C-alpha cells in the first residue's frame, strides 16, 4: 500500500439504515455517512486520533470525514454509503452499468486538528 493511500469499502451500516428512515438530515444518518473507519495501525501511520477530521481524495472528488478506529484489515477504510462516499466514486461502469463502488484506492489527507 503506497504511503497515504487506503482501499475504501462502502456499505450499509445499522446506524445509516435506521438513520435514513428518520430522514437524511437526521443526526444519526449524517453521523453514519460522515464517519470513516480505519484500523489502529493506519490511524497511527497518519497521525490520526478518534474524532479527527480527515479528507479523502480520489480522481473524481473529495470529501471530509470524521475518523474512528475500528477492527479492519490494515490498509482498508470503511464508510457507510451515502452522499459523501458517492462524491468519491467515478461514473465509469466498464460496460456493466455498475460503478466501482467498493474496493477503490483513496488518498488520505490529514486535516489539522480543529479544522
Amino acid at each position, binding site marked *: 500500500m503506497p504511503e497515504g493511500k487506503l482501499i475504501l469499502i462502502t456499505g*450499509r451500516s445499522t446506524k445509516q439504515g435506521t438513520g435514513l*428512515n428518520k430522514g437524511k438530515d437526521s443526526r444519526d444518518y449524517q453521523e453514519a455517512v460522515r464517519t470513516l473507519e480505519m484500523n489502529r495501525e493506519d490511524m497511527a501511520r497518519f497521525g490520526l486520533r478518534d474524532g479527527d477530521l480527515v479528507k479523502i481524495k480520489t480522481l*473524481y472528488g473529495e470529501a471530509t470525514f470524521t475518523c474512528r478506529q475500528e477492527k479492519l484489515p490494515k490498509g482498508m477504510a470503511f464508510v457507510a454509503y451515502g452522499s459523501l462516499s458517492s462524491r468519491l466514486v467515478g461514473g465509469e461502469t466498464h460496460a456493466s452499468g*455498475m460503478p466501482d463502488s467498493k474496493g477503490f484506492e483513496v488518498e488520505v489527507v490529514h486535516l489539522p486538528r480543529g479544522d
Partner: protein
Amino acid sequence: MEIDNVVCAFCGCVCDDITVTVEEGRISEVKNACTLGRAWFLGHSSNAHRPSGTVNGRPVSTEEAVEEAARILAQARYPLIFGLTSTYCEAQKEAIALAEVLGACIDCCTSVCHGPSGIALQGVGEPTCTLGEVKNRADLIIYWGSNPAESHPRHLTRYAVTPKGLFTPRGRKDRRVVLVDVRPTPSARAADIFLQVKPGKDFECLWALRALIKGIDLEEDAVADTGVTLAQLKDLADRMQSCRFGMLCVGQGLTQSRGKQMNTTAVFLLVRELNGFTKFAAMPMRGHGNVTGIDNVLAWQTGYPFGVNFSRGYPRFNPGEFTAVDVLTRQEADAALIIASDPVANLPRPASGRLSQIPTVALETRESETTKIAKVVITTAPAGISAEGTVYRMDNVPLRLRKVLPSPFPSDEEVLSRLLERVKELKHA
C-alpha cells in the same frame, strides 16, 4: 388498534409477520421487525406536513405538479426514468408504460446493486430456491460479500441461520454458517467460520473452489495474494460437497467490487457444479424492499430486468449503455423522472451531478437529496404504510403490501397513471 401480518418493505427480506399498533392516526408500536424495519415503519408513518407538490421550490397542488412534470417529460428528447425499488409492482407497471410512450430509458436501482447478478443469470443461469427451502432444508449457509447483520437482520433469524425448519429441527445447531468478506463485519459473530479475502480477490477464490470440487490438485501459489490459504479453501470445498443442502447468499461485496459480473458468474457456475454432488442454491441478497419486483415487472413487459431503452419504439437492453449511471455520466439524458429513490445521494457524483443540470421530476414520500434539486416534486403515499400493492421478496415470492394508515397524498400508481394519460395527450396534441 393492532394490525397483524403487515409486510415490511424496507429490505429484500420483505418480512410479512409484522404487527403494528395504530393510535391517533400514527404508528405507535411495531412488533417482530428488526431495528431497520422498526425505523422504517416509524419514520415513514407521517409525511402529512409536506406540500402535495413543488415546482421550482414553490408549493403547488398534485395536479399542477403532474401537469408540469408531463410537460417536461413530453418535451424531452432523451428522458430517463430511474429508481422504482421502494414502490410496488402496480406503480412500476405504469412507469414502464410511460417509458414506452416517451421513448425513454428506464432503469432501476438493480443496475447499481445486483445488475451484475442479473448479467450472470443471463449468461449461465441461476441455480436458486425460495427462502422457505432455505429455512427447512439448508444445513450450510455461506454469506459471501454480504453483511446481513446490518443489511438484512432477519435473514439470519427468520430464514437462514437460527429458525427451526422441517429438516433443520434444532435450528442453529443443525447448520454451519460461513462468512466470506474483506473485513470482519458484525455478521462474523453469527458465523462458525470467517474467511477474510483481500479486496478484489473474490473471483480467484471462487475459481479455485471450482477447481477443487472438480478434484484438480492446486498448488498454494494458485491462491497466493487472495488473503486465504489453500487449506481454508479445501476445507470450504469439502463442506460444500458434503452438506445436505447448501446455500450461497450473494452480497454486494461481489457485485460492486472488481470483477462484478465475473464474480457472480463464478458463483453461479460453482453452485451449478456443486449440484453434481449435493443440493446447492445461490441467491442475491436484494437490498431495497421491491427491487426484485421491478426486475420481474420489467422482464415480463420488456424481456429485460433493468437498463431498458425505448428510443426506437421497442425495448433494447445494454448495460453500460442504457443504465442510469452511464446515461447520466455521458450527459445524454435531458430530463429525468425519479421514483421512490434518492440517486442524488447514492449515485456517483459524475452521474448525480447531471440530475441538477436537467429538469428532474421526483416522486417521493419525504425529503431527500433528490427532492432538494428536483424542479418538480410530487409527494406520494408511502408504499406499505399508506398504499397497498404487490412486492417481490428476494426469492421472487410475491407478497401483498398492506395499507395501515390513511394518507392525504395519492399513491405512486395514481400519480404515474395520471402522468401517463397527460403525456399521451401532449404527445398526440
